[in-house]
């Protein structure tokens, strides 16, 4: 599932063009990096991060996941949130670069969305296993198609993060959210691995 998200990550491409081509390029580039298993892990991670940074519009994604809370943040908080959130995605998904097992990505269609957005649908298949669906919501920003959401088997990451952040904002506000993100990022960078069990809710 997370490999799917990884495969979602886009490369550098030119011109507005066709959103399907953009997703095609993105997945091809990411797979090309993942296949180079002889490269050190960190190098693969940083290459993928570069592809992602170019192809995902993190400013838009940050606004979408915070929704109405976004406007309540001051500029500094917005900047910090965008940075920490991007890092969170890079750290958690970057840990999966070793779990690539020759998955193939096939573009199965695209549909028009409101206000000129598009959704490009793909199947990610691993030899001998059933494919699963990964959709990319893309939006034209400037003169490029940028990815603004990844939907894995019907589960939108934007909607999912929004739900989590809503919860955290309601209980501890933006300071709590930034703190959580930061702690998780520091921990993830220091020692990738399974997180320990947290204490129960009261």
């Amino acid at each position, binding site marked *: 599932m997370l490999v799917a998200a990884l495969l979602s990550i886009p490369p550098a491409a030119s011109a507005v063009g066709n959103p399907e081509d953009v997703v095609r390029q993105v997945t091809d580039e990411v797979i090309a990096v993942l296949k180079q298993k002889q490269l050190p892990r960190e190098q693969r991670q940083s290459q993928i991060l570069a592809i992602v940074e170019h192809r995902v519009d993190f400013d838009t994604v940050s606004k979408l996941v915070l929704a109405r809370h976004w406007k309540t943040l001051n500029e500094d908080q917005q900047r910090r949130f965008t940075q920490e959130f991007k890092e969170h995605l890079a750290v958690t998904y970057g840990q999966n670069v070793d779990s690539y097992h020759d998955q193939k990505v096939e573009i199965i269609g695209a549909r028009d969305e409101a206000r000129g957005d598009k959704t490009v649908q793909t199947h990610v298949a691993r030899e001998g296993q059933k494919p699963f669906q990964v959709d990319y919501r893309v939006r034209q920003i400037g003169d490029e198609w940028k990815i603004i959401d990844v939907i894995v088997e*019907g589960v939108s990451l934007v909607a999912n993060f929004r739900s989590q952040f809503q919860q955290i904002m309601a209980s501890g506000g933006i300071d709590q959210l930034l703190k959580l993100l930061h702690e998780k990022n520091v921990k993830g960078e220091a020692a990738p691995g399974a997180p320990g069990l947290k204490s129960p809710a009261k």
Partner: protein
Amino acid sequence: MKRAALATIFLAALAGGVHAGTAAPYAADPDPPEHPGDYDPLERVNRGTFWVNDHFDVYLLEPVAKAWDWIAPDPLQRSISHFFQNVRFPVVFANDLFQGKPREAGIDVARFVINTTVGVAGFMDPAEKWWGLEPHVEDFGQTLGRWGSPAGAYLVIPILGPSNVRDAFGLAGDYPLTIVPFFVDQYILWGARVAEGVNERSLYLQQVRDAKEAALDYYSFVRNAYHQRRVALINDSRVEAKPQNEQDLYFFDNPQD
């Protein structure tokens, strides 16, 4: 893989941990739920059950599943999974019919016949492998959703994990359709359920670890993922099916903000 993804979410939820940073009381949440999947009036109880389920998973189910994963070769794990999937045939078939899907119902009959015979009592899936007959994921919760029932309040069921009022009724509705041979001792049936649970869990070790890693508030991560996944299943992931709250989700400059 549909089923696998559902199981992932299911198990992720079963494995539900509550994030320390968000352990504060939520009762006084001034914000109305923004997403239909976040309707959770029983949150306090649910969080408690979630915590218990997570401990059950971390200290018992996951270690056993890990051991099983280490002992058993992958094809055996998949075979066992196929076996239990095949046994679910009456449930899937009935719900195909309830939802007015004769074509799917026919395919599921063919799958059952082929896999029970050629597929050696369901341990293999030649129906898909050789005839390209893909399995369907149906249950009475989806049927109710198809009939227009709303999800209702989110529920965390002990051991079983995330659900909601509609899907809990669905579980009850499917129960009589489960194959329960009268001549088999009850303890063996329970044993089979445990075996199924352990085996399924062993197929999703990495996914659950990843989910816990990626989540900032694991409880709401699971709650939301469960809801979204159920909506996708009810719509059979049709190409034209759109994520809920489309307008609200992707355009933050909405006038109603």
